[in-house]
Protein backbone atom coordinates (compact mmCIF):
# COMPACT_ATOMS: atom_id res chain seq x y z
CA UNK A 1 0.00 0.00 0.00
CA UNK A 2 1.38 3.35 -0.94
CA UNK A 3 0.83 6.62 0.79
CA UNK A 4 -1.42 8.36 -1.72
CA UNK A 5 -4.38 9.88 0.10
CA UNK A 6 -7.80 9.00 -1.29
CA UNK A 7 -9.74 11.05 1.22
CA UNK A 8 -8.62 13.82 3.53
CA UNK A 9 -10.96 15.30 6.08
CA UNK A 10 -10.01 18.33 8.11
CA UNK A 11 -12.20 19.73 10.92
CA UNK A 12 -15.34 18.92 9.01
CA UNK A 13 -18.61 20.02 10.65
CA UNK A 14 -22.28 19.83 9.63
CA UNK A 15 -25.01 21.61 11.52
CA UNK A 16 -28.75 21.37 11.00
CA UNK A 17 -30.03 24.40 12.87
CA UNK A 18 -28.90 23.98 16.48
CA UNK A 19 -28.12 20.34 16.00
CA UNK A 20 -24.52 19.45 15.21
CA UNK A 21 -24.69 16.19 13.30
CA UNK A 22 -20.99 16.00 12.53
CA UNK A 23 -18.73 17.77 14.95
CA UNK A 24 -15.27 18.80 13.83
CA UNK A 25 -13.95 15.49 12.51
CA UNK A 26 -10.56 14.93 10.89
CA UNK A 27 -9.06 11.83 9.30
CA UNK A 28 -7.34 10.52 6.20
CA UNK A 29 -7.92 7.44 4.10
CA UNK A 30 -5.13 5.93 2.03
CA UNK A 31 -5.61 4.64 -1.47
CA UNK A 32 -6.65 0.98 -1.55
CA UNK A 33 -7.59 0.95 2.09
CA UNK A 34 -10.79 -0.53 3.49
CA UNK A 35 -11.90 2.11 5.92
CA UNK A 36 -14.70 1.27 8.36
CA UNK A 37 -16.90 3.96 9.75
CA UNK A 38 -18.67 2.71 12.87
CA UNK A 39 -21.20 4.19 15.20
CA UNK A 40 -24.63 3.79 16.71
CA UNK A 41 -27.68 4.96 14.81
CA UNK A 42 -27.68 8.72 14.77
CA UNK A 43 -23.95 9.05 15.48
CA UNK A 44 -23.47 11.02 12.27
CA UNK A 45 -21.98 8.38 9.97
CA UNK A 46 -24.40 8.88 7.12
CA UNK A 47 -24.22 12.66 7.30
CA UNK A 48 -20.43 12.55 7.11
CA UNK A 49 -20.56 10.19 4.16
CA UNK A 50 -23.12 12.31 2.34
CA UNK A 51 -20.81 15.32 2.61
CA UNK A 52 -17.95 13.35 1.12
CA UNK A 53 -20.17 12.20 -1.77
CA UNK A 54 -21.21 15.73 -2.58
CA UNK A 55 -24.81 15.22 -1.53
CA UNK A 56 -24.59 17.65 1.35
CA UNK A 57 -22.66 20.88 1.81
CA UNK A 58 -20.47 21.03 4.96
CA UNK A 59 -21.07 23.83 7.46
CA UNK A 60 -17.35 24.29 8.01
CA UNK A 61 -14.01 22.50 7.68
CA UNK A 62 -12.33 21.07 4.61
CA UNK A 63 -12.30 17.76 2.84
CA UNK A 64 -11.05 16.35 -0.42
CA UNK A 65 -12.14 13.17 -2.15
CA UNK A 66 -9.90 11.72 -4.85
CA UNK A 67 -8.07 15.03 -4.70
CA UNK A 68 -11.15 17.16 -5.31
CA UNK A 69 -12.68 19.67 -2.96
CA UNK A 70 -16.14 18.89 -1.51
CA UNK A 71 -17.30 22.48 -1.79
CA UNK A 72 -16.52 23.36 -5.35
CA UNK A 73 -15.64 20.21 -7.22
CA UNK A 74 -18.53 17.92 -6.35
CA UNK A 75 -19.24 17.12 -9.97
CA UNK A 76 -15.63 15.94 -10.41
CA UNK A 77 -15.89 13.92 -7.22
CA UNK A 78 -19.03 12.24 -8.52
CA UNK A 79 -17.20 11.07 -11.62
CA UNK A 80 -14.62 9.31 -9.48
CA UNK A 81 -16.69 7.62 -6.84
CA UNK A 82 -19.22 4.86 -6.55
CA UNK A 83 -22.01 4.91 -4.00
CA UNK A 84 -24.33 2.36 -2.56
CA UNK A 85 -26.98 3.71 -0.23
CA UNK A 86 -28.67 2.34 2.83
CA UNK A 87 -31.87 1.83 0.91
CA UNK A 88 -31.69 -0.64 -1.93
CA UNK A 89 -31.05 1.55 -4.90
CA UNK A 90 -31.35 -0.42 -8.11
CA UNK A 91 -34.50 -0.16 -10.17
CA UNK A 92 -36.71 -3.10 -9.33
CA UNK A 93 -38.61 -2.85 -12.59
CA UNK A 94 -35.50 -3.08 -14.73
CA UNK A 95 -33.61 -6.31 -15.39
CA UNK A 96 -30.14 -7.07 -14.03
CA UNK A 97 -28.51 -6.22 -17.35
CA UNK A 98 -30.58 -3.08 -17.83
CA UNK A 99 -29.59 -1.75 -14.42
CA UNK A 100 -25.91 -2.32 -15.13
CA UNK A 101 -26.21 -0.75 -18.54
CA UNK A 102 -28.08 2.25 -17.18
CA UNK A 103 -25.65 3.09 -14.42
CA UNK A 104 -22.59 2.40 -16.53
CA UNK A 105 -24.09 4.55 -19.26
CA UNK A 106 -24.63 7.57 -17.09
CA UNK A 107 -21.02 7.34 -15.97
CA UNK A 108 -20.09 7.71 -19.61
CA UNK A 109 -18.65 4.26 -20.26
CA UNK A 110 -18.42 3.09 -23.87
CA UNK A 111 -20.76 0.45 -25.21
CA UNK A 112 -17.83 -1.84 -25.83
CA UNK A 113 -16.68 -1.54 -22.22
CA UNK A 114 -20.19 -2.05 -20.88
CA UNK A 115 -20.77 -5.11 -22.99
CA UNK A 116 -17.56 -6.83 -22.03
CA UNK A 117 -17.64 -6.04 -18.39
CA UNK A 118 -21.32 -6.89 -17.96
CA UNK A 119 -20.52 -10.44 -18.97
CA UNK A 120 -17.68 -10.64 -16.46
CA UNK A 121 -19.72 -9.22 -13.59
CA UNK A 122 -22.70 -11.44 -14.24
CA UNK A 123 -20.44 -14.44 -14.34
CA UNK A 124 -18.66 -13.45 -11.13
CA UNK A 125 -21.97 -13.08 -9.36
CA UNK A 126 -23.32 -16.32 -10.84
CA UNK A 127 -26.30 -14.45 -12.20
CA UNK A 128 -26.18 -15.91 -15.71
CA UNK A 129 -29.70 -17.27 -15.44
CA UNK A 130 -31.07 -14.12 -13.89
CA UNK A 131 -29.39 -11.63 -16.21
CA UNK A 132 -32.62 -10.87 -18.05
CA UNK A 133 -34.93 -11.09 -15.06
CA UNK A 134 -36.34 -8.12 -13.21
CA UNK A 135 -34.30 -7.17 -10.17
CA UNK A 136 -37.53 -7.33 -8.18
CA UNK A 137 -37.44 -11.12 -8.43
CA UNK A 138 -33.99 -11.54 -6.84
CA UNK A 139 -33.51 -12.36 -3.13
CA UNK A 140 -32.24 -9.43 -1.03
CA UNK A 141 -28.70 -10.76 -0.59
CA UNK A 142 -28.24 -11.10 -4.35
CA UNK A 143 -29.63 -7.65 -4.91
CA UNK A 144 -27.10 -6.19 -2.49
CA UNK A 145 -24.20 -7.95 -4.18
CA UNK A 146 -25.48 -6.73 -7.52
CA UNK A 147 -25.84 -3.19 -6.19
CA UNK A 148 -22.22 -3.29 -5.05
CA UNK A 149 -21.03 -4.55 -8.41
CA UNK A 150 -22.98 -1.78 -10.09
CA UNK A 151 -21.46 0.80 -7.73
CA UNK A 152 -17.90 -0.20 -8.78
CA UNK A 153 -18.75 -1.07 -12.38
CA UNK A 154 -17.37 2.18 -13.75
CA UNK A 155 -14.10 1.54 -11.89
CA UNK A 156 -14.19 4.48 -9.49
CA UNK A 157 -11.25 5.43 -7.29
CA UNK A 158 -13.35 5.25 -4.17
CA UNK A 159 -16.54 3.47 -3.34
CA UNK A 160 -18.80 4.59 -0.51
CA UNK A 161 -20.97 1.92 1.07
CA UNK A 162 -23.66 3.05 3.48
CA UNK A 163 -24.64 0.09 5.66
CA UNK A 164 -24.56 -2.21 2.68
CA UNK A 165 -25.38 -5.42 4.50
CA UNK A 166 -28.47 -4.44 6.48
CA UNK A 167 -30.95 -7.30 6.68
CA UNK A 168 -28.68 -9.78 4.89
CA UNK A 169 -27.96 -13.27 6.24
CA UNK A 170 -24.46 -14.09 7.60
CA UNK A 171 -23.44 -16.31 4.69
CA UNK A 172 -24.27 -13.68 2.12
CA UNK A 173 -22.58 -11.05 4.24
CA UNK A 174 -19.44 -13.13 4.07
CA UNK A 175 -19.69 -13.32 0.29
CA UNK A 176 -20.32 -9.61 0.17
CA UNK A 177 -17.10 -8.93 2.03
CA UNK A 178 -15.23 -11.17 -0.36
CA UNK A 179 -16.42 -8.85 -3.12
CA UNK A 180 -15.14 -5.87 -1.15
CA UNK A 181 -11.72 -7.50 -0.77
CA UNK A 182 -11.56 -8.22 -4.47
CA UNK A 183 -12.40 -4.61 -5.22
CA UNK A 184 -9.78 -3.33 -2.76
CA UNK A 185 -7.22 -5.62 -4.36
CA UNK A 186 -7.72 -3.82 -7.68
CA UNK A 187 -6.87 -0.55 -5.94
CA UNK A 188 -10.33 0.78 -5.19
CA UNK A 189 -10.56 2.54 -1.86
CA UNK A 190 -13.52 1.32 0.18
CA UNK A 191 -15.27 3.57 2.63
CA UNK A 192 -17.91 1.59 4.49
CA UNK A 193 -20.30 2.41 7.32
CA UNK A 194 -21.73 -0.39 9.37
CA UNK A 195 -22.99 -1.25 12.77
CA UNK A 196 -22.15 -4.93 12.52
CA UNK A 197 -19.08 -5.15 14.73
CA UNK A 198 -17.90 -8.44 13.24
CA UNK A 199 -17.63 -6.63 9.91
CA UNK A 200 -15.42 -4.03 11.56
CA UNK A 201 -12.84 -6.76 12.00
CA UNK A 202 -12.59 -7.07 8.20
CA UNK A 203 -11.52 -3.44 7.79
CA UNK A 204 -7.92 -2.25 7.54
CA UNK A 205 -8.73 0.63 9.77
CA UNK A 206 -11.87 1.72 11.61
CA UNK A 207 -13.07 4.95 13.02
CA UNK A 208 -15.72 4.97 15.73
CA UNK A 209 -18.11 7.89 15.83
CA UNK A 210 -19.99 8.87 18.97
CA UNK A 211 -22.32 11.88 19.05
CA UNK A 212 -20.91 13.34 15.85
CA UNK A 213 -17.28 13.14 16.98
CA UNK A 214 -14.57 10.62 16.28
CA UNK A 215 -13.94 8.73 19.45
CA UNK A 216 -11.32 6.30 18.30
CA UNK A 217 -9.48 5.51 15.10
CA UNK A 218 -7.02 2.74 14.47
CA UNK A 219 -6.64 -0.79 13.18
CA UNK A 220 -9.03 -3.26 14.78
CA UNK A 221 -6.12 -5.01 16.51
CA UNK A 222 -4.81 -1.83 18.08
CA UNK A 223 -8.28 -0.78 19.22
CA UNK A 224 -8.90 -4.09 20.90
CA UNK A 225 -5.57 -3.87 22.63
CA UNK A 226 -6.09 -0.31 23.77
CA UNK A 227 -9.52 -1.04 25.20
CA UNK A 228 -8.49 -4.35 26.59
CA UNK A 229 -11.28 -6.05 24.71
CA UNK A 230 -11.56 -9.46 23.11
CA UNK A 231 -13.67 -8.32 20.17
CA UNK A 232 -14.67 -5.15 18.36
CA UNK A 233 -18.11 -5.62 19.88
CA UNK A 234 -16.67 -5.01 23.32
CA UNK A 235 -14.65 -2.05 22.10
CA UNK A 236 -17.75 -0.51 20.71
CA UNK A 237 -19.86 -1.11 23.82
CA UNK A 238 -17.21 0.52 25.98
CA UNK A 239 -17.01 3.58 23.79
CA UNK A 240 -20.67 3.88 22.92
CA UNK A 241 -21.74 3.82 26.55
CA UNK A 242 -20.63 7.44 26.72
CA UNK A 243 -23.05 8.43 23.99
CA UNK A 244 -25.52 11.12 24.96
CA UNK A 245 -27.79 10.89 22.01
CA UNK A 246 -29.36 7.66 21.06
CA UNK A 247 -31.50 6.63 18.13
CA UNK A 248 -32.80 9.52 16.11
Amino acid sequence: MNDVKAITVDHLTKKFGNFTAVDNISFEVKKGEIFGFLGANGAGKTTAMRMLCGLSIPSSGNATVAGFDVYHQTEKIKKNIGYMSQKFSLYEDLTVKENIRFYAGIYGKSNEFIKNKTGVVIKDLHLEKEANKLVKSLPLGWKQKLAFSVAIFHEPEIVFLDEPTGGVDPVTRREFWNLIYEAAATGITVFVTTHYMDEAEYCNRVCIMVDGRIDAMDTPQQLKKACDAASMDEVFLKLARKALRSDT
Partner: protein
Amino acid sequence: MRSLRFLLQKEFRQIFRNTSILRIIFLMPIIQLLVLPWAADYEMKNINITVIDHDHSPYSRQLISKITASGYFILQDYTSSYNQSLVDIEKDKSDLILEIPASFQKNLIKENESKLFVAVNAINGVKANLGGAYLISIIRNFNGNIRSKWIQFPRFNPELNINVVSSDWYNPEMNYKYFMVPGILVILVTLVGSFLASLNIVKEKEIGTIEQINVTPIKKYQFVLGKLIPFWVLGLIVLGIGLGISRLFYGIISAGNLFVIFGFAAVYLLAVLGLGLLISTYTSTQQQAMLISFFLIMIFVLLGGLYTSIDSMPHWAQMMTKVNPVTYFIEVMRMVVLKGSGFADIKNQFLIMLGFAMVLNGWAVLSYRKRY
Protein backbone atom coordinates in the same frame (compact mmCIF):
# COMPACT_ATOMS: atom_id res chain seq x y z
CA MET B 1 -25.86 13.82 -24.27
CA ARG B 2 -24.90 10.17 -23.92
CA SER B 3 -26.08 10.16 -20.33
CA LEU B 4 -29.39 11.55 -21.49
CA ARG B 5 -29.76 8.69 -23.90
CA PHE B 6 -29.32 6.19 -21.09
CA LEU B 7 -31.75 8.06 -18.88
CA LEU B 8 -34.37 8.07 -21.61
CA GLN B 9 -33.85 4.41 -22.32
CA LYS B 10 -34.42 3.65 -18.65
CA GLU B 11 -37.55 5.79 -18.34
CA PHE B 12 -39.19 4.32 -21.41
CA ARG B 13 -38.37 0.80 -20.26
CA GLN B 14 -39.93 1.48 -16.87
CA ILE B 15 -43.05 3.06 -18.32
CA PHE B 16 -43.64 0.30 -20.81
CA ARG B 17 -42.99 -2.37 -18.24
CA ASN B 18 -45.58 -1.01 -15.82
CA THR B 19 -48.81 -2.22 -17.34
CA SER B 20 -51.06 -0.53 -14.84
CA ILE B 21 -49.59 2.87 -15.66
CA LEU B 22 -49.70 2.11 -19.35
CA ARG B 23 -53.33 1.26 -19.03
CA ILE B 24 -53.95 4.55 -17.30
CA ILE B 25 -52.07 6.43 -19.97
CA PHE B 26 -53.77 4.88 -22.96
CA LEU B 27 -57.01 3.26 -21.91
CA MET B 28 -58.28 6.00 -19.63
CA PRO B 29 -58.28 8.70 -22.31
CA ILE B 30 -59.99 6.41 -24.78
CA ILE B 31 -62.76 5.40 -22.39
CA GLN B 32 -63.26 8.91 -21.16
CA LEU B 33 -63.40 10.30 -24.65
CA LEU B 34 -65.97 7.69 -25.55
CA VAL B 35 -68.17 8.24 -22.50
CA LEU B 36 -67.86 11.77 -21.21
CA PRO B 37 -69.02 13.73 -24.26
CA TRP B 38 -72.32 11.89 -24.10
CA ALA B 39 -72.89 13.06 -20.57
CA ALA B 40 -71.71 16.59 -21.16
CA ASP B 41 -74.63 17.97 -23.04
CA TYR B 42 -76.40 21.18 -22.17
CA GLU B 43 -78.76 20.98 -25.05
CA MET B 44 -82.27 21.09 -23.70
CA LYS B 45 -84.59 18.38 -24.72
CA ASN B 46 -86.87 16.18 -22.62
CA ILE B 47 -88.12 18.98 -20.41
CA ASN B 48 -90.82 17.51 -18.19
CA ILE B 49 -94.03 19.45 -18.05
CA THR B 50 -97.17 19.18 -15.93
CA VAL B 51 -100.34 20.67 -17.30
CA ILE B 52 -103.40 21.92 -15.44
CA ASP B 53 -106.15 22.36 -17.96
CA HIS B 54 -109.16 24.07 -16.39
CA ASP B 55 -110.59 24.85 -19.78
CA HIS B 56 -110.81 21.54 -21.64
CA SER B 57 -111.54 23.40 -24.84
CA PRO B 58 -110.36 22.61 -28.37
CA TYR B 59 -107.84 25.47 -28.08
CA SER B 60 -106.37 24.25 -24.84
CA ARG B 61 -106.02 20.78 -26.31
CA GLN B 62 -104.47 22.18 -29.47
CA LEU B 63 -101.96 24.13 -27.43
CA ILE B 64 -101.03 21.08 -25.39
CA SER B 65 -100.53 18.91 -28.41
CA LYS B 66 -98.45 21.62 -30.02
CA ILE B 67 -96.23 21.69 -26.95
CA THR B 68 -95.73 17.96 -26.83
CA ALA B 69 -95.14 17.82 -30.57
CA SER B 70 -92.32 20.35 -30.33
CA GLY B 71 -89.81 17.73 -29.25
CA TYR B 72 -88.58 19.76 -26.30
CA PHE B 73 -91.26 18.80 -23.82
CA ILE B 74 -92.51 15.57 -22.35
CA LEU B 75 -95.97 15.70 -20.87
CA GLN B 76 -95.52 14.16 -17.45
CA ASP B 77 -98.81 14.66 -15.77
CA TYR B 78 -102.26 16.23 -15.89
CA THR B 79 -103.43 17.55 -12.58
CA SER B 80 -106.54 19.35 -11.50
CA SER B 81 -105.01 21.95 -9.22
CA TYR B 82 -101.88 24.05 -8.99
CA ASN B 83 -100.98 22.61 -5.59
CA GLN B 84 -101.05 19.13 -6.99
CA SER B 85 -98.70 20.05 -9.80
CA LEU B 86 -96.40 21.74 -7.35
CA VAL B 87 -95.92 18.33 -5.77
CA ASP B 88 -94.66 17.11 -9.15
CA ILE B 89 -92.04 19.84 -9.08
CA GLU B 90 -91.11 19.10 -5.51
CA LYS B 91 -90.65 15.46 -6.36
CA ASP B 92 -88.50 16.42 -9.35
CA LYS B 93 -90.98 14.66 -11.57
CA SER B 94 -91.58 17.81 -13.50
CA ASP B 95 -89.63 20.94 -14.40
CA LEU B 96 -92.40 23.18 -15.55
CA ILE B 97 -96.09 23.82 -14.90
CA LEU B 98 -98.51 25.21 -17.46
CA GLU B 99 -101.84 26.32 -16.08
CA ILE B 100 -104.61 26.99 -18.58
CA PRO B 101 -107.39 28.92 -16.86
CA ALA B 102 -111.09 28.12 -17.34
CA SER B 103 -112.65 29.89 -20.32
CA PHE B 104 -109.24 30.36 -21.95
CA GLN B 105 -110.72 29.87 -25.39
CA LYS B 106 -113.83 31.92 -24.67
CA ASN B 107 -111.87 34.90 -23.41
CA LEU B 108 -109.50 34.78 -26.32
CA ILE B 109 -112.27 34.98 -28.83
CA LYS B 110 -114.73 37.19 -26.99
CA GLU B 111 -112.47 39.49 -25.02
CA ASN B 112 -109.63 39.51 -27.51
CA GLU B 113 -107.19 38.43 -24.84
CA SER B 114 -106.54 35.54 -22.56
CA LYS B 115 -104.04 34.51 -19.95
CA LEU B 116 -101.75 31.56 -19.39
CA PHE B 117 -99.73 30.87 -16.31
CA VAL B 118 -96.31 29.20 -16.36
CA ALA B 119 -94.20 28.24 -13.34
CA VAL B 120 -90.65 26.96 -13.76
CA ASN B 121 -88.38 25.16 -11.33
CA ALA B 122 -85.50 27.62 -11.42
CA ILE B 123 -82.95 25.90 -9.20
CA ASN B 124 -80.96 25.39 -12.35
CA GLY B 125 -81.24 28.88 -13.75
CA VAL B 126 -80.17 28.17 -17.30
CA LYS B 127 -82.46 25.26 -17.70
CA ALA B 128 -85.33 27.31 -16.34
CA ASN B 129 -84.58 30.20 -18.61
CA LEU B 130 -84.30 28.13 -21.75
CA GLY B 131 -87.30 25.97 -20.88
CA GLY B 132 -89.41 29.07 -20.28
CA ALA B 133 -88.19 30.64 -23.51
CA TYR B 134 -89.02 27.55 -25.56
CA LEU B 135 -92.49 27.36 -24.09
CA ILE B 136 -93.17 31.03 -24.71
CA SER B 137 -92.06 30.81 -28.30
CA ILE B 138 -94.40 27.85 -28.82
CA ILE B 139 -97.25 29.82 -27.28
CA ARG B 140 -96.42 32.85 -29.41
CA ASN B 141 -96.45 30.72 -32.49
CA PHE B 142 -99.77 29.22 -31.47
CA ASN B 143 -101.08 32.70 -30.89
CA GLY B 144 -100.00 33.80 -34.33
CA ASN B 145 -101.80 30.89 -35.94
CA ILE B 146 -105.03 31.71 -34.17
CA ARG B 147 -104.72 35.35 -35.03
CA SER B 148 -104.20 34.69 -38.71
CA LYS B 149 -107.20 32.39 -38.66
CA TRP B 150 -109.49 35.04 -37.18
CA ILE B 151 -108.27 38.09 -39.01
CA GLN B 152 -109.45 37.25 -42.45
CA PHE B 153 -107.70 38.78 -45.41
CA PRO B 154 -105.49 41.21 -43.58
CA ARG B 155 -105.15 44.16 -45.89
CA PHE B 156 -101.87 44.82 -44.33
CA ASN B 157 -100.32 43.22 -41.36
CA PRO B 158 -101.07 45.45 -38.39
CA GLU B 159 -98.30 43.82 -36.48
CA LEU B 160 -94.85 45.29 -36.62
CA ASN B 161 -92.54 42.48 -37.44
CA ILE B 162 -88.81 42.44 -36.98
CA ASN B 163 -87.71 39.20 -38.42
CA VAL B 164 -84.74 37.77 -36.55
CA VAL B 165 -82.72 35.34 -38.59
CA SER B 166 -79.99 33.58 -36.74
CA SER B 167 -77.25 31.57 -38.30
CA ASP B 168 -74.85 29.41 -36.42
CA TRP B 169 -71.39 29.35 -37.82
CA TYR B 170 -68.74 26.68 -37.42
CA ASN B 171 -71.20 24.23 -35.90
CA PRO B 172 -74.47 24.63 -37.77
CA GLU B 173 -76.04 21.50 -36.33
CA MET B 174 -75.34 22.87 -32.88
CA ASN B 175 -73.67 19.62 -31.94
CA TYR B 176 -72.54 19.98 -28.38
CA LYS B 177 -70.02 17.19 -28.76
CA TYR B 178 -68.03 19.24 -31.25
CA PHE B 179 -67.55 21.67 -28.44
CA MET B 180 -66.87 19.23 -25.62
CA VAL B 181 -64.61 16.66 -27.24
CA PRO B 182 -61.66 18.98 -27.95
CA GLY B 183 -61.94 20.36 -24.42
CA ILE B 184 -62.01 16.94 -22.78
CA LEU B 185 -59.01 15.95 -24.85
CA VAL B 186 -57.08 18.83 -23.34
CA ILE B 187 -57.87 17.59 -19.85
CA LEU B 188 -56.66 14.11 -20.68
CA VAL B 189 -53.39 15.38 -22.11
CA THR B 190 -52.97 17.52 -19.00
CA LEU B 191 -53.49 14.56 -16.71
CA VAL B 192 -50.82 12.53 -18.48
CA GLY B 193 -48.44 15.46 -18.39
CA SER B 194 -48.57 16.85 -14.91
CA PHE B 195 -50.07 14.06 -12.85
CA LEU B 196 -48.03 11.12 -14.02
CA ALA B 197 -44.79 13.04 -14.31
CA SER B 198 -44.93 14.33 -10.76
CA LEU B 199 -45.85 10.92 -9.41
CA ASN B 200 -42.97 9.38 -11.31
CA ILE B 201 -40.34 11.62 -9.76
CA VAL B 202 -41.78 11.45 -6.25
CA LYS B 203 -41.73 7.69 -6.53
CA GLU B 204 -37.96 7.76 -7.08
CA LYS B 205 -37.72 9.85 -3.95
CA GLU B 206 -39.85 7.43 -1.97
CA ILE B 207 -37.95 4.31 -2.96
CA GLY B 208 -34.59 6.03 -2.60
CA THR B 209 -33.17 5.59 -6.09
CA ILE B 210 -32.92 9.34 -6.45
CA GLU B 211 -30.06 9.29 -3.91
CA GLN B 212 -28.16 6.95 -6.17
CA ILE B 213 -28.76 9.21 -9.15
CA ASN B 214 -27.62 12.23 -7.15
CA VAL B 215 -24.15 10.82 -6.53
CA THR B 216 -23.61 10.16 -10.19
CA PRO B 217 -22.15 12.84 -12.45
CA ILE B 218 -25.55 13.40 -14.09
CA LYS B 219 -26.37 17.07 -14.42
CA LYS B 220 -29.60 18.52 -13.06
CA TYR B 221 -30.87 19.40 -16.48
CA GLN B 222 -30.08 15.93 -17.79
CA PHE B 223 -32.10 14.29 -15.06
CA VAL B 224 -35.00 16.70 -15.55
CA LEU B 225 -34.93 16.23 -19.31
CA GLY B 226 -34.80 12.48 -18.85
CA LYS B 227 -38.05 12.73 -16.93
CA LEU B 228 -39.70 15.33 -19.15
CA ILE B 229 -39.12 13.88 -22.58
CA PRO B 230 -40.89 10.53 -22.11
CA PHE B 231 -44.05 12.16 -20.76
CA TRP B 232 -43.84 14.84 -23.40
CA VAL B 233 -43.81 12.16 -26.06
CA LEU B 234 -46.61 10.24 -24.33
CA GLY B 235 -48.69 13.39 -24.07
CA LEU B 236 -48.38 14.00 -27.80
CA ILE B 237 -49.25 10.37 -28.52
CA VAL B 238 -52.33 10.63 -26.32
CA LEU B 239 -53.30 13.78 -28.19
CA GLY B 240 -52.89 11.95 -31.49
CA ILE B 241 -54.98 9.02 -30.31
CA GLY B 242 -57.58 11.42 -28.97
CA LEU B 243 -57.83 13.29 -32.25
CA GLY B 244 -58.19 9.95 -34.01
CA ILE B 245 -61.04 8.94 -31.72
CA SER B 246 -62.79 12.26 -32.17
CA ARG B 247 -62.63 11.76 -35.88
CA LEU B 248 -63.69 8.14 -35.82
CA PHE B 249 -66.49 8.32 -33.27
CA TYR B 250 -67.67 11.89 -33.40
CA GLY B 251 -66.79 12.83 -36.94
CA ILE B 252 -64.81 15.81 -35.78
CA ILE B 253 -62.32 16.77 -38.43
CA SER B 254 -60.14 19.68 -37.51
CA ALA B 255 -61.00 22.73 -39.54
CA GLY B 256 -57.54 24.11 -38.84
CA ASN B 257 -54.09 22.82 -39.45
CA LEU B 258 -53.05 19.86 -37.29
CA PHE B 259 -49.54 21.27 -37.11
CA VAL B 260 -50.89 24.28 -35.26
CA ILE B 261 -52.52 21.98 -32.71
CA PHE B 262 -49.45 19.83 -32.24
CA GLY B 263 -47.16 22.82 -32.20
CA PHE B 264 -49.17 24.43 -29.46
CA ALA B 265 -49.54 21.13 -27.60
CA ALA B 266 -45.77 20.68 -27.65
CA VAL B 267 -45.28 23.93 -25.80
CA TYR B 268 -48.31 23.38 -23.60
CA LEU B 269 -47.01 19.99 -22.50
CA LEU B 270 -43.70 21.58 -21.56
CA ALA B 271 -45.60 23.97 -19.33
CA VAL B 272 -47.70 21.36 -17.54
CA LEU B 273 -44.73 19.04 -17.23
CA GLY B 274 -42.92 21.91 -15.58
CA LEU B 275 -45.82 22.14 -13.17
CA GLY B 276 -45.59 18.41 -12.49
CA LEU B 277 -41.87 18.77 -11.82
CA LEU B 278 -42.51 21.64 -9.50
CA ILE B 279 -45.05 19.64 -7.52
CA SER B 280 -42.59 16.78 -7.26
CA THR B 281 -39.84 18.99 -5.89
CA TYR B 282 -42.09 20.28 -3.14
CA THR B 283 -43.51 16.94 -2.02
CA SER B 284 -41.93 13.87 -0.54
CA THR B 285 -44.62 11.20 -0.81
CA GLN B 286 -46.82 10.05 -3.63
CA GLN B 287 -49.91 10.72 -1.52
CA GLN B 288 -49.00 14.36 -1.07
CA ALA B 289 -48.16 14.73 -4.73
CA MET B 290 -51.46 13.18 -5.73
CA LEU B 291 -53.53 15.35 -3.41
CA ILE B 292 -51.86 18.53 -4.56
CA SER B 293 -52.02 17.69 -8.26
CA PHE B 294 -55.59 16.67 -7.80
CA PHE B 295 -56.51 19.91 -6.10
CA LEU B 296 -54.75 22.01 -8.72
CA ILE B 297 -56.10 20.10 -11.67
CA MET B 298 -59.64 20.33 -10.35
CA ILE B 299 -59.40 24.09 -10.11
CA PHE B 300 -57.67 24.33 -13.47
CA VAL B 301 -60.31 22.22 -15.16
CA LEU B 302 -63.35 23.82 -13.60
CA LEU B 303 -61.97 27.31 -14.11
CA GLY B 304 -60.62 26.48 -17.55
CA GLY B 305 -63.80 27.18 -19.43
CA LEU B 306 -64.41 23.54 -20.25
CA TYR B 307 -67.92 23.45 -18.84
CA THR B 308 -68.88 27.03 -18.19
CA SER B 309 -68.22 30.21 -20.06
CA ILE B 310 -65.33 32.31 -18.76
CA ASP B 311 -67.03 35.56 -19.76
CA SER B 312 -69.76 34.87 -17.24
CA MET B 313 -67.35 34.54 -14.33
CA PRO B 314 -66.80 37.40 -11.91
CA HIS B 315 -63.80 39.58 -12.55
CA TRP B 316 -61.48 37.98 -9.97
CA ALA B 317 -62.23 34.53 -11.34
CA GLN B 318 -61.44 35.74 -14.85
CA MET B 319 -58.11 36.96 -13.53
CA MET B 320 -57.49 33.47 -12.17
CA THR B 321 -58.17 31.93 -15.55
CA LYS B 322 -55.39 34.09 -16.98
CA VAL B 323 -52.79 32.18 -14.97
CA ASN B 324 -54.32 28.85 -15.84
CA PRO B 325 -52.53 27.11 -18.71
CA VAL B 326 -55.50 24.82 -19.27
CA THR B 327 -57.66 27.80 -20.26
CA TYR B 328 -55.38 28.67 -23.14
CA PHE B 329 -55.11 25.20 -24.55
CA ILE B 330 -58.88 24.63 -24.40
CA GLU B 331 -59.37 27.94 -26.14
CA VAL B 332 -56.79 27.24 -28.81
CA MET B 333 -58.01 23.71 -29.35
CA ARG B 334 -61.56 24.85 -29.94
CA MET B 335 -60.47 27.73 -32.12
CA VAL B 336 -58.34 25.59 -34.35
CA VAL B 337 -60.50 22.49 -34.52
CA LEU B 338 -63.85 24.21 -34.92
CA LYS B 339 -63.11 27.53 -36.53
CA GLY B 340 -59.91 26.74 -38.37
CA SER B 341 -57.91 29.49 -36.70
CA GLY B 342 -54.35 29.63 -37.91
CA PHE B 343 -51.10 30.36 -36.16
CA ALA B 344 -51.55 34.11 -36.50
CA ASP B 345 -54.82 33.92 -34.56
CA ILE B 346 -53.32 32.05 -31.65
CA LYS B 347 -50.00 33.88 -31.55
CA ASN B 348 -50.79 35.54 -28.22
CA GLN B 349 -51.78 32.32 -26.53
CA PHE B 350 -48.68 30.69 -27.94
CA LEU B 351 -46.38 33.33 -26.50
CA ILE B 352 -48.10 33.21 -23.13
CA MET B 353 -47.73 29.44 -23.07
CA LEU B 354 -44.06 29.77 -23.93
CA GLY B 355 -43.76 32.07 -20.94
CA PHE B 356 -45.50 29.53 -18.70
CA ALA B 357 -43.17 26.80 -19.90
CA MET B 358 -40.07 28.84 -19.20
CA VAL B 359 -41.15 30.08 -15.78
CA LEU B 360 -42.43 26.75 -14.50
CA ASN B 361 -39.47 24.73 -15.76
CA GLY B 362 -36.95 27.30 -14.65
CA TRP B 363 -38.46 27.33 -11.20
CA ALA B 364 -38.58 23.54 -11.08
CA VAL B 365 -34.95 23.11 -12.15
CA LEU B 366 -33.79 25.69 -9.65
CA SER B 367 -35.68 24.12 -6.79
CA TYR B 368 -34.69 20.57 -7.66
CA ARG B 369 -31.66 20.13 -5.50
CA LYS B 370 -29.01 17.50 -5.67
CA ARG B 371 -27.54 18.60 -2.36
CA TYR B 372 -29.11 19.51 0.94
